[in-house]
């Protein structure tokens, strides 16, 4: 036994986690220590007067990622074979959608987000979010519960966002039920690149992209942001498993302070019907860690149905403004 062994024993630390290694890769790819700034999603739950947790807020913000500053784009890494596969998949999805005229319905459940339902048809979409049906008081920081809301809200709608018809034109709409307000705005720019870190973050939550599957699958496979990782039977249907590359970002100072964490990592796996290549199920998760609150993972499972385009189903793909709600003037969701 010598002093070098003692020093080693005293100072030895565990190897870095995969998330830390991944963040280092990202920083090298970005050419330097440029932290990604995640903008808060408009009207995140943290704004709710009922005192919902900041941790929930960040989860929602990360999951949706709308309106956020663009994260550094993932470096293209796709091979020619992946590009060919992507083109093949894209064609199959386009054929399936064109031939069957279907309405997308995605239902997700999550301890963090509660339940969500997404309806989409063509350029129309309607994402509805509900308070959890049960109270998930499973995380306490500094003696304060991070998931707490009045019991009478359980299972009720929380918000809706998507498109609505105003004066015969399709506009962007955002409805918050807790304060009975809504806003309308012209349809915004296209979402961020499917290969961006922002998009990967958005996939860490319930399905939002809805009808963009063709381009999304195409782009993520081609750029290496996702790869085909196997085949799985789901409800008797053979599916192709597509796994996105995990993305880790450093939380912006405000978020980091709010949730007592420093990092967030988003992961997603998509299962598509091997015959039609239509999505069947998606797992998304976002983990925050590196601070005093302790590592925490919020995950969601979205099951997808494709329904006939009946008038009733198509109507569900539009946000409905409930009577008596007050209009908030500003960009949709910018509250």
């Amino acid at each position, binding site marked *: 036994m010598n*002093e070098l062994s*003692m*020093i080693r024993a005293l100072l030895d630390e565990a190897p*870095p986690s995969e998330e*830390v290694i991944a963040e*280092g890769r990202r920083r*090298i790819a970005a050419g330097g220590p440029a932290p990604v700034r995640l903008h808060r999603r408009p009207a995140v739950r943290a704004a709710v007067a009922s005192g919902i947790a900041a941790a929930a807020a960040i989860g929602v913000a990360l999951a949706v990622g709308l309106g956020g500053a663009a994260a550094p784009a993932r470096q293209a890494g796709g091979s020619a074979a992946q590009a060919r596969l992507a083109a093949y998949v894209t064609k199959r999805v386009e054929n399936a959608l064109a031939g069957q005229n279907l309405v997308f319905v995605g239902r997700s459940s999550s301890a963090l987000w509660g339940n969500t339902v997404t309806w989409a048809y063509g350029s129309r979409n309607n994402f509805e979010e509900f308070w959890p049906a049960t109270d998930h008081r499973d995380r306490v920081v500094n003696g304060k519960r991070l998931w707490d809301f009045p019991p009478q809200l359980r299972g009720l709608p929380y918000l809706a966002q998507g498109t609505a018809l105003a004066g015969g034109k399709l506009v962007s709409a955002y409805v918050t039920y807790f304060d009975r307000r809504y806003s309308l705005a012209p349809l915004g720019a296209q979402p961020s690149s499917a290969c961006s870190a922002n998009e990967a973050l958005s996939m860490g939550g319930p399905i939002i992209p809805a009808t963009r599957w063709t381009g999304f699958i195409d782009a993520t496979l081609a750029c290496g942001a996702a790869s085909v990782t196997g085949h799985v039977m789901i409800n008797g249907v053979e599916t192709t498993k597509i796994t996105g590359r995990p993305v880790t970002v450093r939380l912006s100072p405000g978020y980091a302070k709010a949730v007592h964490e420093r990092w967030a990592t988003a992961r997603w796996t998509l299962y598509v019907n091997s015959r039609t290549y239509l999505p069947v199920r998606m797992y998304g998760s976002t983990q925050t860690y590196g601070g005093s609150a302790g590592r925490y993972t919020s995950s969601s499972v979205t099951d997808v149905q494709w329904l006939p385009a009946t008038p009733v189903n198509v109507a569900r793909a539009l946000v409905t403004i409930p009577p008596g709600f007050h209009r908030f003037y500003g960009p949709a969701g910018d509250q």
Partner: protein
Amino acid sequence: VRTRSEAGAAPVTAVGDFAGVYERHFPEIHRYIAGRLGRDAADDIAADTFVIALRNRDGFDASRGTVRAWLYGIATNLVARQQRAERRRYRALARVGVRDVADGPEERVVSWVAAEGLQPRIAAALARLSREERDVLLLVALADFSHEEISQALGIPYGTVGSRLNRARKKIRTTLGQEGQIDE
């Protein structure tokens, strides 16, 4: 199995090569920095080490040492900027109790150190070393570097490595009051 020296000898000629350098060496560089500054600081500084290395890769000269030594040199320079934090870490280690250990060779050492009540004294002794002495000593203790590799990493003469290391070890032993009782 690829040895450390083989991996360390790999040239850095392109960004593509650099990705391999990162994959091979990031964990050990992180561990080295974590040993000196703690894991939280290591997350940032280890990444900074590789960002700096990438930016300066054209300045890497294989004739003057291995990639591994080069990276440790950058990391050691970055750690040197955090001297106060490093000393704080040692003082904290001197105050805290025994870390949880499981069975295993390294853990037995921890148990031994703890049993003898030497942990606070080792930590305190590390805090009192000069930066130059600590750099040399910890490259040996944490990275298992030879004198030659330390010379490459820090850009100091071979003889200086030996004298600094001897001085550092002597100070540690004196602090421990165990001179003559430690196995070599």
